[in-house]
Structure formats: C-alpha cells, structure tokens
C-alpha cells in the first residue's frame, strides 16, 4: 500500500498538521494508538480500504513530535507505535533490499489498514447494537411474573432387605464380645523394659539385642517375634531416656546395645 501520490499529500500537510495539533490537546481522549490512527485517517476523507498508510504514518509521527514538543507525556504504546510507523515509513519509501527476508512493507501497511478497518467496523457494529430496541427501554418483560411454586416432595424408601439386615444387625449385636487377645504368646514392652533395666547393668560392652530375649521365647517363631518387638521398643525407650546406646553396623545387621558410660 505504498502510496504513489504521497507527494501530493505534502501540499495539504499544513492543514493536517493543524488538525493534528488540535488533537494533541485531546490526547487523553484517545483509547490507544490504533484509535488515534483511526481518527487521523478520517482527515484523508477516503474509504479506509484506500487509505494511504504512508500518509497516515507521517501524520502520526507529526502528532507524536508535537506532543513531545509540548512536553505531553505519551504512554509507551504510543511511542512503540511511532517507532514502528517510522520503520514502516522508511520501508515504504526505500526500494526493497535484494534477498530481504520477512514480510514486505506493502504487507505490513495492508495489515495496518486492515486493523483500522476492523476497528472501525467494530465501532459501527457496537453503535448498531446499542441502537437496537433494548429490554427495559423499548420493550418489556412481564412486570408481575408469577413464580413457579416449587413443591419438593421427599419419598423415603427402604427395601425388605434393608429391613431384615437392620433387624439382624440389632439382634446379633449381643453376639459380639469385646475381642480379648490371647496373651499367652505376647511379651509386652513393659515386661521387656523391666527385664532390660535389670540386666543392662551387667552387660559391659556392646551386646546383641537378641541375647536379652528371655528363655523360652527364642524358639517358637510367634513368641520370638513378640519378644523381639517388645525388646526393641523397650531399647528405644531406654535410649530415649539416655540410659543406653544403640547401634547397628548396617541394614539388617544385629542391633547392639550397651549401657551409657555415664548413666
């Protein structure tokens, strides 16, 4: 969209500059650079599809320069747009460099024109939308809506199976007695603690924990398991109290204990 007759537009440049100056006063009123560009484009008095992007870029740059001269703070996006338009302008004016990559200056200009046209179209669409008949202004809903009465009805159900299970549950409740464990094969931690507290003084150096197991508890696996657990727990308790030291050379190696020297 390089404009061939952009030279002509220079003649009218003064008028546009004046228009742009008038706009500067109102810079707060613009909703961003695209909005400003759209406003500037109106001075071209042509269909947006035939707009001279080069001329528009020029107008915008003039606008930004004037704003700077008047020490008007422009938001960063206005300056970004100015830089981009300056670049676009130079690309439009200079012949393309051979072997140059990327989009052509014409493509970029066409896209900018598209953006403006689209923004303009959306503005018009918004205006047409707001011009429609609106509810509560031009047409109305029933002023006295009759609410639907909601009647919630709960139906409770149970099956015969539920009933029988419930009865069975009540009648058999008495059958259950608290579970009492057979303590014959259980060695408690308290027992182990008592034993170890008495024995620990006699062991001089590091001794395997297993050697503390009481007689008659090392052979039967169930008894051995219970006694080992009890003694292990008791040894932890003693260690916590600072009465013994514990060690294990490696994983699964025998656990050894000894009385703490100063205890």
């Amino acid at each position: 969209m390089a404009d061939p007759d952009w030279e002509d537009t220079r003649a009218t440049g003064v008028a546009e500059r004046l228009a742009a100056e008038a706009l500067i006063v109102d810079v707060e009123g613009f909703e961003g650079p695209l909005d400003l560009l759209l406003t500037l484009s109106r001075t071209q008095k042509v269909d947006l599809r035939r707009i001279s992007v080069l001329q528009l870029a020029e107008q915008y740059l003039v606008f930004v320069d004037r704003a700077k001269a008047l020490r008007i703070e422009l938001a960063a996006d206005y300056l970004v747009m100015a830089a981009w338009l300056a670049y676009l302008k130079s690309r439009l004016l200079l012949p393309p460099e051979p072997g140059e990559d990327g989009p052509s200056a014409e493509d970029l200009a066409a896209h900018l024109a598209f953006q403006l046209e689209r923004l303009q179209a959306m503005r018009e669409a918004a205006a047409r939308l707001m011009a429609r008949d609106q509810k509560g202004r031009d047409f109305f809903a029933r002023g006295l809506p009759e609410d639907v009465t909601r009647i919630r009805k709960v139906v409770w159900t149970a099956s015969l199976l539920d009933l029988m299970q419930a009865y069975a549950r009540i009648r058999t409740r008495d059958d259950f007695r608290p579970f009492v464990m057979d303590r014959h094969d259980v060695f408690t931690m308290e027992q182990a603690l008592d034993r170890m507290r008495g024995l620990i003084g006699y062991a001089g150096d590091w001794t395997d924990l297993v050697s503390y197991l009481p007689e008659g508890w090392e052979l039967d696996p169930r008894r051995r398991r219970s006694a080992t657990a009890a003694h292990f727990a008791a040894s932890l308790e003693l260690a916590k109290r600072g009465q013994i030291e514990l060690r294990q050379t490696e994983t699964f190696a025998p656990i050894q204990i000894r009385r703490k020297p100063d205890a």
Partner: protein
Amino acid sequence: MSDDAERSLFAAPPIAEQERMVEAILFATAEPVTVAELEARMPHGCDPAEALVYLRRRYEGRGVNVVKVGDGWAFRTAPDLGYLMQKETVETRKLSRAAIETLAIIAYHQPCTRAEIEEIRGVAVSRGTIDQLLEMEWIRFGRRRMTPGRPVTFVVTEPFLDHFGLESARDLPGLKELRAAGLLDNRPMPGGMGAPRDEEEAEDVTGQSELFED
C-alpha cells in the same frame, strides 16, 4: 358534543390500537393498573375503559385472563391452569439407619412401645424418627399397654406390608432364615468364639411368635 370535537381534534388512535396499548401496559406493569392510570399513560383522547372491554373479551377462555384486582386491572393465569405453575420435584431418599432399625423392631415385635424399641436398640429413639414413620404411614398407633403409664404401642400398617410385599408381619423371616440367607454376617470370632448360640436363636423364634399371637 364538545367531547366529540376534542376527540377528533386530537385524533385518538383507533380502538384496536388502544387495545394493544392497554395490553402492553397491563403486561409490563408490576401492579394492577387503574383506568385513570391507563388514561394518564395513553395518548390524549384514548378511552381505556372501552379498550379494556375489547381486551377482556379477547382473553376470555385464554391461558391468561384480564381480571379486576381492587380498583385496577391485571393479567392473571386462568384458574384452571394454576397447576402448571407448580413444579413438583420428587426426591427419593433412603431411610436413615435409625428409622429402618426402629421400623424393623416394630415389625418384628409389634405391638411395641417406645421403651421397648429403645431397649432393643440400646439407644434412645428420637421423636422425629417415630414421626417420620407415622407420616409415611408405615407405622400407626396400636392399643395402649395395660401397664403402669399405659404407654402407646406401635404396629405396622397395610401400606407397610404393601411396600415390602408382605401379606402379614408374620411373614417376616426369622433369625434362622436370615442367617440361612446369609444376612446374619457371622464373622468367625477369634479362637472359635462367637459361634451362633443355638439357645438364643430358639428363644428368638418363640419370643417372636409370642408377640404376634394376640
């Protein structure tokens, strides 16, 4: 005469148009609208009373009617269609454990007092639970016990039997049958304890038959 002159001067809208206006105003307004208000809102020279006559006739027998409410006029749903303005939602919920247990005790031990239910369940029976079962019409009051305090008893009802597909409460399976059906979940007790005690079972059956014989 002067009235006619005024009318022609201001060229009131045709009556059909006035009818539309009244229709729209009555529809959109939250309260009934009086003729005076209609007149104030409509263009000069309108005769809302006349328009109302036409409008009322138009809505005769329709789904909504134009009715007089106090001094004003309003649209109202035709009385025969009122049921369309109700939305019934039916929710099916399982009876609570307390309710089903209470119901089971009444069914197996009827007539049964509240104290008896509490004794069997081992916990207090809330008023709400009994009320719920009464309301469902699954239980009703039986004869009062001829014991001190003359407590009320509860028995199960015909709808109860219907619901559970029973001919009589006597058809409820006894404990033996429940066990045979696998409903008595006899978890093996540690050390072989907790085997079903035959005596209790036997007692149960007699207990039940005693209760049902009247």
